[in-house]
C-alpha cells in the first residue's frame, strides 16, 4: 500500500453526500480533516505569533496551484509580496515563478493608522475590488487572507469593520472561494478580535510549546462543521519542503499482515523462531544491556536482507555510519558493499539534535524516499533523550504503526540499564512489538557471557530455551547452553564441561569397540573350533562308515562262505543236517 493514500477513500465517503472538501496538499492535514478543508468556504487558522499560520496558508495556495490546478490569491495585510517570496523560498516554494505563470497572485494591503484619517462613512469596498480583481485575473479558486485582523489596528470604526468583514466572508462564500483566514490567538478566545464569530465552518488552531528546551509545534482542528475530524493535538513540523502534520498514522488498527517470513540472518536464531525467522512486516524489539550485541544482531538481519536484494535503512542514534560499518566488519559483516550497491542507507543523528516529532518526520521522509523493506532503529531508547517518556511512547507507537502500515520489518533495539529489571524497557514499548529478543549477560565462573532468548513472538511457535550468544569473527553464533547439575553453564565453563563430556563419550565409544572386537575374536575362535570338530566328526563318521561297510562285507562273506560250506557238506559227509536245512529254507 502506498504511503499516504487514505485520502481517496475518505473523500469519496464524505464528499458525495455531505460536504465537498478541498485538499490542502499539506502532509497530514488532509488526513486529520478527512479530506481537506471545506470547499468554497472560509476556514479560520489561528495561533500565536510564529506558529506558522502564514506558512500554512501559503502552502495551501502553493499546493493548490502546483498539485491541484487551483490558482490562489493571497491578500496579505502583514507581509509584502517580496517578503513572502523570500520567506517561502526557504521552504522550496518558488512564488516568483508561480506569479509569472499566473497561478498565484499576491496583493499586499498596507495599513498605517498614522497616515489614515477617518472622516465620515466609508466601507471596505476597495478590498473587495482588489480581491475580486486578483481572483478574476488568474481565475483563482483559493484565497488566503493573512491576516484581516490588521484592519482592526488600522481602523477606528470597529462596527463598520465587523460589518464589512462579515460581508467579505459572505462574498467569498458566494464566489465559492476556498479561503484560509489567519488570525492571532487571543487570551481566552481563539482570536484576538473574535473572527471565529464569522468563520465557524472550520477552525484550525496552531500552537507551540517548549518542553525541556525543545520546541514542539502542534495543530488541532477545533471545529469542523458537518464533518468528522481528528480531535487531538497533532505535532507538526515546518521543514525544508513545507509543513508536515503527524497524525497517529492509523487511528484504527487495520494494517494488512503477511505470512511471509524473513530470515534473521542467523541460522540458529531462525531455528529458535520455528525455523523461518521473523514475520515480514513485524516489529522486533531487541533489548539488552550495553555491549550485548544488539547492533550486531540487527546488522546480521540487514546483511541477510541486502544479500536477498532487499533495501534497508539503518537509523542510528549512537554511532556514525562509518563506525557501525567498521565495527560490524570485525565480526565479518561487510555492510559497506550494500551501501555501495545502494541497498543500504544509514541515517545517523544525535537524538538531541531536534525534537521527537522531527525525528519521526525524518524517519518518515527517508523511508518514503528510500522505500526499504527493512528498517533498523538503533536504539529507540536514544529517542528518550529528545522527549518525555510519554511522548517517546506515543512517537514510538506512531513509528511502529507507520512501519507496519508500510509492511516494513523493523528491528528496534533498546538499551536496558544494568540495574533495572531485564524484562522491562524504559519506554514500555514491549507491548507494541510483535517479537522480543532479550540479550542478557550471564555471569558465572569469573566470566561474563551472553545469552539470548525469545521473550515473545506473536504467532510463532518459538523456542523457550536460552542460547549462548557468541560474537565470532564470522558473525553471531548461537550455542546451546549447557544445563548441568549446577545449573546453566556458559563460556569456558561450558567449553570445559563439553570437553569432559566429549572425552567421556569417546572413552565409552572406545570401550564398546573393544568389547565388540573381543566378541568377534571369540566368535572366530569358536567358529574354528566348531569347524575342527566338525571335521573330526566327519572323519570319524567316514571311518565308522567304512568299518560298518567292512563289517557288512565280512558278514556277507561269512554267510556266503557258510552257504558254500553247507553245500559242500551236502556233497560231503562232514556237513551237518540241521544247518543245511536252514540254509535251504533261507534260499527258498
Amino acid at each position, binding site marked *: 500500500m502506498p504511503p499516504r493514500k487514505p485520502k481517496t477513500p475518505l473523500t469519496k465517503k464524505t464528499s458525495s453526500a455531505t460536504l465537498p472538501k478541498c485538499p490542502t496538499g499539506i502532509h497530514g492535514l488532509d488526513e486529520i480533516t478527512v479530506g481537506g478543508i471545506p470547499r468554497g468556504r472560509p476556514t479560520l487558522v489561528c495561533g500565536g505569533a510564529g506558529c506558522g499560520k502564514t506558512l500554512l496558508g501559503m502552502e495551501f495556495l502553493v499546493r493548490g496551484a502546483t498539485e491541484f490546478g487551483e490558482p490562489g490569491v493571497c491578500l496579505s495585510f502583514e507581509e509584502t509580496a517580496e517578503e513572502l517570496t523570500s520567506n517561502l523560498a526557504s521552504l522550496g516554494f518558488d512564488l516568483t515563478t508561480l506569479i509569472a505563470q499566473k497561478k498565484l497572485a499576491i496583493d499586499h494591503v498596507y495599513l498605517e493608522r498614522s497616515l*489614515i484619517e477617518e472622516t*465620515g462613512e466609508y466601507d471596505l469596498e476597495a478590498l473587495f*475590488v482588489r480581491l475580486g480583481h486578483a481572483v478574476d485575473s488568474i481565475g483563482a479558486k483559493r484565497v488566503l487572507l493573512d491576516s484581516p485582523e490588521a484592519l482592526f489596528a488600522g481602523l477606528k470604526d470597529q462596527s463598520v469593520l465587523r460589518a464589512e468583514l462579515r460581508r467579505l466572508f459572505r462574498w467569498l462564500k458566494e464566489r465559492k472561494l476556498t479561503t484560509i483566514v489567519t488570525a492571532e490567538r487571543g487570551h481566552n478566545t481563539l482570536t484576538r478580535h473574535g473572527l471565529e464569530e464569522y468563520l465557524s465552518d472550520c477552525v484550525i488552531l496552531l500552537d507551540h510549546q517548549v518542553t525541556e528546551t525543545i520546541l514542539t509545534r502542534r495543530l488541532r482542528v477545533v471545529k469542523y462543521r458537518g464533518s468528522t475530524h481528528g480531535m487531538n493535538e497533532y505535532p507538526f513540523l515546518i521543514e525544508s519542503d513545507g509543513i508536515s502534520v503527524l497524525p497517529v498514522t492509523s487511528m484504527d488498527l487495520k494494517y494488512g499482515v503477511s505470512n511471509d517470513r524473513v530470515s534473521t540472518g542467523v541460522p540458529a536464531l531462525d531455528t529458535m523462531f520455528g525455523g523461518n525467522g521473523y514475520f515480514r512486516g513485524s516489529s522486533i524489539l531487541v533489548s539488552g544491556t550495553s555491549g550485548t550485541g544488539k547492533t550486531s544482531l540487527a546488522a546480521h538481519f540487514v546483511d541477510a536482507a541486502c544479500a536477498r536484494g532487499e533495501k534497508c535503512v539503518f537509523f542510528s542514534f549512537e554511532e556514525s555510519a562509518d563506525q557501525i560499518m567498521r565495527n560490524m566488519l570485525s565480526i565479518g559483516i561487510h555492510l559497506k558493499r550494500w551501501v555501495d550497491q545502494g541497498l543500504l542507507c544509514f541515517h545517523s543523528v544525535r537524538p538531541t539534535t531536534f525534537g521527537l516529532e522531527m525525528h519521526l518526520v525524518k524517519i518518515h521522509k527517508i523511508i518514503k524516499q528510500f522505500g526499504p523493506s527493512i528498517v533498523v532503529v538503533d536504539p529507540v531508547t536514544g529517542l528518550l533523550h529528545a522527549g518525555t517518556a510519554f511522548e517517546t511512547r506515543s512517537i514510538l507507537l506512531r513509528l511502529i504503526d507507520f512501519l507496519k502500515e508500510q509492511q516494513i520489518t523493523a528491528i528496534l533495539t533498546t538499551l536496558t540499564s544494568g540495574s533495572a529489571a531485564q524484562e522491562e524497557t524504559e519506554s514500555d514499548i514491549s507491548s507494541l512489538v510483535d517479537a522480543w529478543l532479550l540479550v542478557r549477560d550471564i555471569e558465572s565462573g569469573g566470566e561474563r557471557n551472553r545469552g539470548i532468548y525469545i521473550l515473545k513472538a506473536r504467532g510463532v511457535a518459538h523456542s523457550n530455551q536460552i542460547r549462548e550468544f557468541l560474537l565470532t569473527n564470522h558473525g553471531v553464533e548461537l550455542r546451546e547452553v549447557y544445563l548441568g547439575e549446577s545449573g546453566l553453564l556458559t563460556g569456558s565453563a561450558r567449553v570445559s564441561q563439553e570437553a569432559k563430556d566429549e572425552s567421556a563419550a569417546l572413552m565409552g565409544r572406545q570401550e564398546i569397540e573393544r568389547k565388540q572386537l573381543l566378541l568377534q575374536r571369540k566368535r572366530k575362535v569358536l567358529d574354528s573350533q566348531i569347524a575342527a570338530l566338525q571335521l573330526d566328526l566327519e572323519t570319524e563318521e567316514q571311518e565308522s562308515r567304512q568299518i560298518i561297510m567292512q563289517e557288512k562285507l565280512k558278514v556277507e562273506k561269512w554267510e556266503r562262505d557258510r552257504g558254500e560250506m553247507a553245500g559242500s557238506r551236502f556233497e560231503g559227509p562232514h556237513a551237518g543236517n540241521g544247518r543245511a536245512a536252514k540254509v535251504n529254507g533261507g534260499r527258498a
Partner: protein
Amino acid sequence: MPPATQRASHKAAGARKPADARNAPIPKWELRLYVAGQTAKSLQAFANLKKICEEHLAGEYRIEVIDLLLSPQLAQGDQIFALPTLVRRLPEPVRKIIGDLSNTERVLVGLDLQPQRFGAGT
C-alpha cells in the same frame, strides 16, 4: 504608474477639468479621490471635497477621481482598501483620508492644512 494613464482612465465625477483649467501646469495640491461607482457616499465625498478645496485651496489644487469599478487594478498602487478614499499625493508625504469627508475638521487635519488657515476658514 504614469499619471497619464490614470487621467485617461477615469471620468467618473468629471470634476478634474475645472481644477485643471484654473491652475495650469503643476498645482500645489494634487488630490485623488477613489470611489466605486456613483454611490451616495462617493457623490457625497466628492461634493464635500470640492467644497473644502474651494474654501481652503482655491486655485492651488487638482482632483482626480478614480472609479475602481472601471479600473480595479489602480487600487493596489495607492494601497486603497476603504472607499471613498482621498489621497493627498502632493504635497508630500502622501496622506489618506477615508470616508465621505463629511467631517470637515478631520479632513483638514488629514490634509494637514495650516492651522491659521484652518482657523480662518471657520
